[in-house]
Every structure is written in structure tokens, then in C-alpha cells.
């Protein structure tokens, strides 16, 4: 599936959407009508349920999830001890102004509108998107989709609306791809989730333009827990893009999303993420897709910023000839740890998976790749290709690779390649001798390193990505 939006844009439009993400570092005073307060107890859950007017089954789901969250240990046996620095008692789990998402930007509260205008969202919507959902703290402030898509039966709403108004489609899949007990943070999300998208694409409907969600944190000590469920019915195709920012607060902020994708027979889902969290966000996200017969799920994931990101998008290939792909780019600057990877679970014959991961560690930044590929013995004709490349810029940075490829049986083809390279002093000297500043030289080297992956991004996002990298590299020069 490809969306050729690049040809439809003139230079002015491109320039208009070529926004400066340093502009993400601002916030407005909080005006929350609903605030669940600090800390997480049964009362917090009930507060959220009451405010959202959740159905009883959701209330029960949340309470159960809270128990699971409490019982699950922090995964510090394999992951970083930095997780212990998250103080669940000071986090605020739900903040909203109590307004329903607006269908028109004119109705969005002024400060919220200003926020998204500064981030360039309305322009992007006009330029190349089929629909947009813009979330501000716990709830969507704006949600709209082109009218013709509504006529085709496409559903694009927030999770609250999804579970209430489309229960018959929502409920059978909700929490099925990623069960509550998958990990501590999927349990946390299941307990307090708010916002995120619910998307349903009917049989055979192929969206030509992407749908986009933008997640904005505006409040300090806040936890954002959006929950996204995308279902592409048989033969349907959709590309979904998400962007995220938060201002730089003195204290840490938590972002813990759960994203479930369901691609039914012959369907295709592409999920593109360009995150640019400020450097004190703990970003702990669980993402997984289910691909049925002849279906395809692709994760295109770009992780810039945050204090700690832990994210391993996965695909369960449950039907014959299903395909799963993870293309990821992670950039870890000083003070950041990008712990990312991919999970490919082959559960049917002749299924194919591809993982291409590129990480860049700068300064004292740390990048970790964790991959899991699972092909059981009773299957045949499964293929996996895994490539992970790391680029180190200066000697203090660190990169680790933990691939786990479990292939049982002998009727499969897997290949694994890994490389570590360095931007040497000589390479920088060479580029600087041609007139590039140290920052420009580093970002050119980084862009060269990820060049082949950036082509996989939609045009608009690859421009954005390049700019984000430029900003990061400039900031990393003393």
C-alpha cells in the first residue's frame, strides 16, 4: 500500500507543513474541569469511569486491570533500572476540560487551538490527511474526518466513543491483541486509558489519504494513556500516522499507550509514528498487530526524544501468507535511552516478516535493540529477515543488541544481519572541511545512515524527520 501524496503538494504547502518542533516546547496554563488527582487507587478508576460515563463492562475491565498492574513487577530484571524512578503516586492520571471533541477547529478552545496551530496540525489536515484526531492531555479536543469516508462506513472516533457507540465491533477485539496482563504498562493503560483512536475500515475500502492522530501533553506530572484500536476489514487498506510532543517540564511525565491493530483477510494496515518527546518523558508503549490470511501489518516507527522509550512493535501472523514488518529508527541523545525493537510471531504457514532497525547513539545516549522472532516447529515456509544497524557518534555512546530468533523446524528461511558503525572524527573533519558546521556534518552523517529507511516514510513525514534530526544534532554540539 502506498500513498503518493508527494506529487500532490506544491512547495508552499510543503513549507507550511514543515513545522519547527522546537515550537513544541511551550505550554498553556492548565484549565481542567476534571482532574483525577495524584496517585492511582480504586477511587481514581471510579472517578475516570464516572467522568467518562463508562459502561459497566469497561468499569470492570479497568478495575481488573488495576489489580494486574499492582501484581506485575517492574520488568527491571531485563530492562533498565531507570523504570524505578517513575513515581506512580505523584502522577495525575486523568485531566480534561470535560468537552466533547469538536468537529470544527473554530469550536476548539482558543489555547488548545493555538497549541495545535503551532504544531501545524490544521495545515497538515488541509494538505494531505483524510482525518485528524488531536488529543490534549486525556481527551481529544478535535476529531474530524472527510465526509465521503463517513458515507463509506469508515469509523474514526476516540476510544470512548468507540466503545460506547460501536460496541459490537469494538468489544470483540478490544484487549485481544494485547491482553491486559501482557506487561505492567499494558495493565496500567488498561486501568486508566483515555483517548486514542478507534478506527474501522469496512470491507474493501482503501483509504487513499492517511488518518492522523496527534498526542499532546500540556500538563506537568501527567500521565497520558491513550488506547488505539484499528480494525481493517477484509481487503481494506489504511495508513495511520501519529505524532507526539510535550513541553519540557522540570519533572517527569509518563506516556503509556496501547495500540492494537487487526488486519482481517487481505487487509493492509500501515502505522507510522514520529515521536518527538521532550527529554523527561517516560515513553512506555505496547503496540501489536494481528494479521490474518494474506493480510499485512507494517509498523514504521521513529523514536526521537524522551528520557526512556521502551517499545517493541509486534505482528502476530495468524493467517497463511500474512506479512509483518517493522521499520524503526531510534535516535538517543545524551540523557536518553531508546530501548526499542520488534516482535514477530509466526503462527501460520508461509508467513513472512521483515525487521529493519537503525539506531543512532549520540553523546552519552544509549540505544538498545531487542528483537524476538518466533517460528514454531509445526509450520512450514516461514521467512524472516532481520537487519539491525547501529551508528555511534562519539565514544561515550552505547549500543546493545539482543536479538532472539527462535526457529524450530527446518522448513523456514531466516536471516539476520547486524552492524555497528561510527561517525569517525575523520569523517566529521572531512565534512567540516567542506564548510559544514559540526552539527550539520553530524546530521548529514545520520541522515545518510537512515536514508534508505526514510524513503519508507510518507513524504511529509520524511521532511519532518530530517528536520527533527537536524535539531537534535545541532543541540548535541557543545
Amino acid at each position, binding site marked *: 500500500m502506498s500513498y503518493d501524496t508527494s506529487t500532490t503538494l506544491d512547495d508552499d504547502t510543503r513549507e507550511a507543513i514543515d513545522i519547527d518542533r522546537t515550537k513544541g516546547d511551550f505550554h498553556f496554563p492548565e484549565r481542567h474541569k476534571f482532574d483525577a488527582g495524584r496517585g492511582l487507587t480504586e477511587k481514581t478508576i471510579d472517578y475516570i469511569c464516572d467522568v467518562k460515563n463508562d459502561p459497566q463492562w469497561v468499569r470492570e475491565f479497568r478495575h481488573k486491570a488495576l489489580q494486574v498492574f499492582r501484581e506485575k513487577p517492574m520488568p527491571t530484571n531485563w530492562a533498565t533500572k531507570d523504570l524505578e524512578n517513575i513515581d506512580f503516586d505523584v502522577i495525575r492520571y486523568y485531566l480534561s476540560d470535560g468537552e466533547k471533541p469538536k468537529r470544527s477547529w473554530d469550536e476548539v478552545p482558543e489555547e488548545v487551538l493555538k497549541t495545535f496551530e503551532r504544531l501545524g496540525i490544521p495545515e497538515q489536515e488541509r494538505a494531505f490527511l483524510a482525518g485528524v484526531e488531536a488529543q490534549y492531555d486525556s481527551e481529544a479536543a478535535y476529531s474530524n474526518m472527510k465526509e465521503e469516508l463517513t458515507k463509506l462506513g469508515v469509523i474514526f472516533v476516540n476510544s470512548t466513543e468507540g466503545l460506547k457507540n460501536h460496541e459490537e465491533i469494538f468489544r470483540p477485539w478490544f484487549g485481544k491483541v494485547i491482553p491486559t496482563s501482557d506487561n505492567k504498562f499494558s495493565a496500567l493503560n488498561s486501568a486508566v486509558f483515555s483517548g486514542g483512536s478507534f478506527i474501522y475500515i469496512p470491507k474493501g475500502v482503501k483509504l487513499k489519504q492517511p488518518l492522523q492522530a496527534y498526542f499532546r501533553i500540556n500538563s506537568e506530572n501527567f500521565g497520558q494513556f491513550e488506547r488505539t484500536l484499528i480494525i481493517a476489514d477484509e481487503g481494506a487498506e489504511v495508513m495511520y500516522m501519529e505524532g507526539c510532543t510535550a513541553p519540557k517540564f522540570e519533572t517527569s511525565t509518563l506516556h503509556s499507550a496501547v495500540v492494537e491493530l487487526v488486519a482481517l483477510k487481505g487487509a493492509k494496515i500501515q502505522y507510522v509514528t514520529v515521536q518527538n518527546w521532550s527529554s523527561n518523558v517516560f515513553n512506555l508503549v505496547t503496540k501489536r498487530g494481528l494479521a490474518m490470511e494474506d493480510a499485512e501489518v507494517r509498523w514504521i516507527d521513529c523514536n526521537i526524544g524522551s528520557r526512556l522509550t521502551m517499545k517493541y512493535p509486534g505482528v502476530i501472523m495468524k493467517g497463511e501468507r500474512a506479512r509483518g514488518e517493522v521499520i524503526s529508527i531510534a535516535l538517543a541523545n545524551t540523557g536518553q535511552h531508546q530501548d526499542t525493537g520488534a516482535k514477530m510471531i509466526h503462527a501460520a504457514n508461509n508467513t513472512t516478516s521483515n525487521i529493519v532497525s537503525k539506531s543512532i547513539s549520540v553523546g552519552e545516549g544509549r540505544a538498545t535493540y531487542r528483537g524476538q522472532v518466533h517460528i514454531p516447529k509445526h509450520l512450514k515456509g516461514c521467512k524472516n529477515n532481520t537487519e539491525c544497524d547501529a551508528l555511534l557518534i562519539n565514544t561515550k555512546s552505547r549500543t546493545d543488541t539482543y536479538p532472539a530468533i527462535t526457529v524450530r523446524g527446518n522448513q523456514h528461511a531466516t536471516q539476520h544481519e547486524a552492524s555497528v*558503525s561510527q561517525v569517525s572524527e575523520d569523517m566529521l573533519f*572531512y565534512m567540516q*572541511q567542506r*564548510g559544514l558546521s559540526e552539527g550539520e556534518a553530524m546530521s548529514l552523517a545520520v541522515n545518510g545512515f537512515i536514508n*534508505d529507511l526514510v524513503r519508507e516514510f510518507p513524504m511529509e513525514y520524511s521532511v519532518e524527520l530530517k528536520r527533527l534530526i537536524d535539531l537534535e544534532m545541532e543541540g548535541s554540539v557543545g
Partner: protein
Amino acid sequence: MSLVINDLHATLEDGTEILKGVSLEIPAGEVHAIMGPNGSGKSTLSKVIAGHEGYVVTGGSVTLDGQDIFEMSIDERSRAGIFLAFQYPSEVPGVSNANFIRAALQSRLPKGEEIDAVAYYKNLYSKMDLLEMDRKFTARSVNEGFSGGEKKRNEILQMLMLEPKVCILDETDSGLDIDALKIVAKGVNAMRSPDRGMLLITHYQRLLDYIKPDHVHVMAAGKIVRSGGPELALELEAEGYEFLKDELATA
């Protein structure tokens, strides 16, 4: 334009002295050649002028049009007009040659001003034609998988595109066969101009058959031990560095 090197001393980071008082003036319009045995400090001189951080300047000065270049960063020196054609050019994986040269040119423009893409490619192609470089080199990653000769040609291409005030060519002839040498020389000669100075660093006289220098200097043990006209290079060719034994002994 004039590049003035005055009593330049430089050491490695460990304190080993490599340049022990080099003085040299390259006015606009002149081509100077520095010859000398291996380890004499020729390449170090070029790197110190370009600003390589592996060396510490311990004395003396280098000025470009009266400006102290040691006050400038590596890239500022480049933008001020100092170009170094590397003996061993680095590879820059994933960055196309065309984008690299374009970025270098872009860095010379005021903020907000963009290079005209059509004019840029026209210029690039004409320079590539002069150097008999295939068009496919625009899309290939900088120096990646290039042969030795292709890398050297690529250095000259960049030099032609950036139009520096001072061209320093470090062992540009090494690793070139005679045909490639002729092409490279053609490119360098095309750059000769009354407004531009050149410094050729070479081990062999061969290059000087194709690029005629105005002055030849011999460097040994970190100093310039003899200077003369083009005939000095021929002398060296005929007699080797042996005849400099006396100078070397006192250096």
C-alpha cells in the same frame, strides 16, 4: 588573496613536534609545490591549516588575507576559502555526492537563501564533464566504493564546485595512473587564476609535469629546507633527497 604561514610550530596531542617552524607565503595567482621525504611534515602542514584537531599549534601563525585562521573553526576556514583535497578522502555512507556538494555550497549562503537547483546541476554536470566523470557519480554515496582514482577526481570536483581562494592538494597524485593524473591535472589547471593560490603537496615530480608550479619548496624534518623555481623539482627527481643531506643534518 594571500596565505601567510609564519614560523609555524605544531605537535601531536602527545607532544611530539612535527612542524618546527614553517614559513611560507602563497600570494594570489601562484602555485607552490612542497616536496619532501615521507614523515617530513608535509601532510601535517595541510591538516594544521585546515584545522584538524589531532594537532596542537604551539607557535607561529597562519593568516588568510591578514585574518588569523587559528581564530576560526574548521568550517569557518573552509567558508573563508581554504580547501583541502585529501590524500585519503573519507566515505560518507548514504549521502549522495550531489547532496553533499550542495550542502557544502548551501553552507556558504546567508540563512534563508536557497541554492537554485537547476543552475546547480548544470554547473555540476559541466565540472563532471571536465573531469570525465560519469553522471552516475552524482547519485552515489560520497566516496563509497570509489576506486583510489575516482576518489581523487571527486576531490577535484568538489574543489571546482566550491571555488576556494586557496587550494591545498595533499598527495593528490598518489594512487593515480597516468590517464587519471592527466585528467586531475586538467581540473587543477582549470582552477589556476590570478585570484587564487595553490599549494601542491607531493612526493614525486611526476605531478609537476602536468601542473607547473611557480615555486618549489623542499620540506624535511618539519621545516622548509630549500626553496627555488620549478628546476628544484627536477633536481630532486634526478638526484633524490640525498643531495639534501647537509640541510637535513642541520635541520
